[in-house]
């Protein structure tokens, strides 16, 4: 049974007074411990889908089923409780944290809100989380703006796994990082998936990264699904015009399908 089932999802914005479909009749599912990538150019609706799935914005139509329950029917305290199972990592790790926060506070919040550890127990849990994502425990006392971009994204991942979620939405989570750090973060994500059986909804415009981490891929264009399927197969032999264009625009893939 699938973990997340999105059916006929639609969201319209108004642009210059006219309704403009950001997401139009999109359906897909994510299985446990699987990585589904959403690919597409800017404005194809990738991030809107991420925000819809996380209930940060409300859809105009469609349904979202998460862990066997209607996710759109939840509200208030029930929704906040269920949010523990569905986490997110943002693109810009600096913007994703309160500029006044320390590393410890960022990791303390989810533990406190969901009652996962008592006050006296939390510092140990925070240290364990930092170790799990490959950071020194001494970093806990630092302010968010004092640590590097790669460390910050590791803290973001630590916050996402603090509540033991079954699904993490990664919205361009490695796009803002430089290449060497990007590889380490992807390794960490793969390792977490193997050990904790976490599923990822991996949003990216970079097909090279997608081929490295995703099992399946959905290619979007102007809010609609252009094609979908096994990540390696789709990237090796795209059928849609937009799929071909995306592959052609990725130098590492172009003319190098043998690897």
């Amino acid at each position, binding site marked *: 049974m699938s973990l997340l089932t999105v059916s006929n999802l639609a969201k319209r914005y108004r642009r210059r007074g006219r309704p403009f479909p950001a997401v139009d009749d999109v359906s897909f599912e994510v299985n446990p411990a699987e990585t589904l990538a959403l690919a597409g150019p800017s404005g194809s609706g990738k991030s809107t889908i991420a*925000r819809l799935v*996380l209930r*940060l914005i409300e859809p105009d139509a469609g349904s979202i089923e998460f862990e066997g329950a209607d996710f759109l029917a939840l509200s208030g305290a029930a929704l*906040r*409780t269920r*949010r*523990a199972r*569905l*986490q*997110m990592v*943002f693109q*810009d790790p600096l*913007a*994703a*944290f*309160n*500029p*006044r926060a320390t590393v410890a506070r960022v990791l303390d*919040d*989810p533990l406190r*809100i*969901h009652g996962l550890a008592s006050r006296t127990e939390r510092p140990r849990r925070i240290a364990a989380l930092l170790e799990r994502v490959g950071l020194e425990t001494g970093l806990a006392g630092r302010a968010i*703006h004092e640590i590097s971009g790669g460390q910050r994204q590791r803290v973001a991942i630590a*916050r996402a796994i*603090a*509540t033991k979620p079954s699904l993490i939405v990664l919205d361009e989570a490695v796009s803002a990082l430089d290449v060497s750090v990007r590889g380490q973060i992807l390794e960490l994500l793969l390792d977490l998936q193997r050990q904790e059986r976490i599923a990822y909804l991996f949003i990216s415009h970079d097909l090279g990264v997608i081929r490295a981490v995703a099992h399946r891929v959905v290619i979007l264009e102007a809010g609609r699904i252009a094609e979908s399927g096994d990540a390696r197969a789709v990237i090796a032999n795209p059928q849609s015009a937009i799929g071909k264009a995306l592959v052609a625009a990725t130098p590492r893939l172009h003319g190098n399908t043998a690897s």
Partner: protein
Amino acid sequence: MNRLHRFFRTPEAIAGALILALLVAMALAASLLFPGDPQAIAGPALLPPFQDWSLPLGTDRLGRDVLAELFHGARTSLAVGLAAAAAALLIGTVVGTLAGFAGGLIDEVLMRITDAFQTVPGFLLALAFVSIVGPSLGVVVVAIALSAWTGPARVARAEVLSIRERDYVAGARVIGMHPIAIAFREVLPNALPPVLALSSVIVAAAILTEAALSFLGLGDPNRVTWGGMIAEGRTVLRTAPYLSIVPGIALVLTVLGVYLAGEGVVESSAVRRSLS
């Protein structure tokens, strides 16, 4: 103390801080240096300044010590200015944060109330309020706050509107934080700096409004105020202008000092914001 260091970098900020320090020292020392009632008669009436060194700034129409009145007046001006500004900032920030964060009908209602207060000239509002309730220090503070909270409310709302769209607010929702906790833990602390930047303007305006109310005889009658001293001196303006000039200079210097120090604080925090 990097922040403090930055604050004292500009001569304006240093001048402002010196004036404010002097004012605070005057207010604190008033009852030590002039322990008696400042409104008691201390010598012959209308003694000009620098004639008698036991009464350096002379005496007024009734023979009261002008220097003692000036010191005790500093206390009133400072107390009213700070209390009114604190009240205005508190009301304004809470109203603005709720309006900006809640949106919809709550936002509409709160902002129309703010509009209503803003369309009435602030001084008229204070005047009307004090004439109805009766003059006392607390009423004067409330009257001034009533006309000054709209500015902070608007700034706080605008800041909150921009901050609530940031990723870290979305992040707080994703980890399941309660909306009230998001508003007051995540949004409000980051919306505060530009609101606090208004405080020097509000303190200065509050001191001037208090002086104007006292000048019109609507100040607390049991306290010496600079506005009241100017009003007293007005009747003998031709023969003894110093009675109006001395408290007038004190008022100008105080407002100037508050402005300059406020500018310094804004400057130093602006640097901090652009760094982070």
